[in-house]
């Protein structure tokens, strides 16, 4: 059935076959190499994050403190050191790993289901919508459960409005989706400004600002725990179903003829990525750029197949988040907010990615 058969091809078929086999195992090996290299990097960054900070704790003590929870170790450190590691640095590092991974996975999911590599939780308005929801709840002095639910509702409403605009004007192009994302984003910013204006300057305003810029500084395990299922379960679902993202990214018609129940599958993906993004916002405020830049980076390195790309993107997201968090607390004596650095690093980095991929971006 070769429609472009020629003798040269037939002659070299054997050598080509062996080459292809090599090519396949190469791509499988490439995934393993990248996966394990980045996993080791993540561990190094994890350790680095525990060691780095204004208050000096020697590395061997850091290791001992961490493991003293599991196995009995003779105490060679003081209680301040212990508290710095266990109550300050460990929770924020764990939070950075979870949030970085979750935002990267959500971003990659949105990009696949909207068949558009330019979308992200920030661009679709999910983050800012969640922020408005949470800020409104804070304004009403609600408890943390209500804040979380308000954040989720805000995120979902924002993504619904953003994706409704292109359908409403019957132009479902990338440009219109990006534009409506910008519109909803600035609308949400305006609402945030109103909320800030009416917020109590002594108590609520600080909390709302904290949310808008994103920070791991105040995170504790007690606060983190109730949010964890709302991040981990949807991300686990996305990871399990990730092959379907490939098929959905081909477009509705093709996905349907390949046997996928579009409405149900897409609904589950949107629900999962919105829930996890909104919960991340609950945990540490809005953090831009991660959901856009990290999947692009992963795709550049391992290719577009979500089967491989998604796990790599999650590890990259965690590493990036730890890196940003470490910078935030070491650059200046006062803590910087995450949003400042993700923007400062993410924006130029995205230009670099666009430059590298200029042929593929339509």
């Amino acid at each position, binding site marked *: *059935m*070769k*429609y*472009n*058969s020629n003798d040269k*091809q037939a002659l070299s078929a054997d050598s*080509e*076959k062996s080459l*292809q086999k090599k*090519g*396949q195992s190469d*791509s499988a090996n490439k995934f393993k190499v990248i996966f394990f290299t980045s996993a080791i990097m993540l561990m190094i960054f994890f350790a680095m994050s525990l060691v780095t900070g204004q208050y000096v704790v020697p590395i061997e003590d850091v290791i001992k403190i961490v493991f003293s929870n599991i196995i009995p170790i003779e105490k060679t450190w003081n209680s301040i050191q212990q508290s710095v590691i266990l109550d300050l640095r460990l929770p924020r590092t764990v939070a950075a790993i979870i949030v970085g991974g979750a935002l990267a996975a959500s971003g990659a999911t949105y990009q*696949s289901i909207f*068949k*558009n*590599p330019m979308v992200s939780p920030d661009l679709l308005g999910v983050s800012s919508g969640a922020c408005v929801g949470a800020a409104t709840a804070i304004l009403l002095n609600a408890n943390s459960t209500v804040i979380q639910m308000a954040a989720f509702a805000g995120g979902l409403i924002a993504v619904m409005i953003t994706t409704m605009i292109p359908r409403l004007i019957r132009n479902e192009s990338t440009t219109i989706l990006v534009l409506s994302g910008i519109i909803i984003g600035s609308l949400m910013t305006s609402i945030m400004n109103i909320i800030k204006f009416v917020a109590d300057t002594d108590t609520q305003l600080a909390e709302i600002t904290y949310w808008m810029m994103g920070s791991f500084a105040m995170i504790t395990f007690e606060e983190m725990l109730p949010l964890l299922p709302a991040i981990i379960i949807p991300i686990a679902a996305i990871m*399990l*179903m*990730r*092959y*379907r993202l*490939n*098929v959905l*990214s*081909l477009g509705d*018609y*093709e996905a*349907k*003829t*390949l*046997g*996928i*129940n579009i409405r149900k*599958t897409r609904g589950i993906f949107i629900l999962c990525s919105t829930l996890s993004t909104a919960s991340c916002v609950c945990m540490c405020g809005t953090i831009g750029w991660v959901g856009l830049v990290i999947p692009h980076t992963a*795709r550049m390195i391992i*290719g*577009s*197949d979500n*089967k491989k790309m998604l796990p790599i993107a999650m590890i990259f997201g965690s590493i990036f988040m730890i890196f940003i968090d470490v910078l935030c607390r070491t650059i200046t004596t006062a803590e910087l907010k995450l949003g400042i650095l993700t923007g400062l690093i993410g924006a130029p980095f995205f230009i670099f990615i666009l430059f590298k991929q200029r042929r*593929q971006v*339509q």
Partner: protein
Amino acid sequence: MILEVNKISFHYHNSREIFRDVSFSIDRGEILSILGTNGAGKSTLLNCIANLRQPNSGEILLNGKPMSKMKVREISQVIGYVPQVHSTAYAYTVREFTVMGRTPYIGAFSTPSKNDYKISDAALEKMGISHLKNKPYTEISGGERQQVMIARVIAQQPQLILLDEPTAHLDYGNQYRVVQMIRQFADEGYALIMTTHNPEHAIMLNGKVAILNNEGILDVGRAAETINGEALSKLYGLPIKLVYNNEAKRNVCVVC
């Protein structure tokens, strides 16, 4: 009978009827070529058969079962669909793209198995495009994309293959090769339905032909009987004659 279409009609919301009371059937080894002018609704008819649009009346039976009562996944194990050549948003490799044809057999929570890759690699081999395997789908030519898409549909292992203008956007040589390939697929036992703008392709395939006119009536019959100068002249609004060509040993269309 793999596919039976019984008196289906279709109109878009608040719009004129695209076709009405369309009936035909197709079985193993048969080819149906659908002819019609631009905008006559050939693709719409094909989409109805592919379960992408629901006819407003009538019913479609797949191996005797009403398609409207079947699950999307069940249908995809019987019908494979080859859309017109297009690009993708992401640079999947040809191998990654082809293995997506296995989706109807892959559970929601799993990824393609070794066996799935084996089947899709065999499909690439069959199409003679194994050398493209690791190339990004976005960076190959239109003709190659067409071959990859057909490899994907082979990997899907359907009984019926639908092709939406498979010869569009292809050069003269590749058009001919696609037609030959469709003929060969029919000999292998697939049922095939394709839409085309070239009546000669339908003549070459020498299977069933359906002409969809602008009044929404579908005229179905054997190619030799249905395609004649009068029918084509009426359809395309041009003086068309069928002339027997001794070299090709078949009728060719000429405008005169």
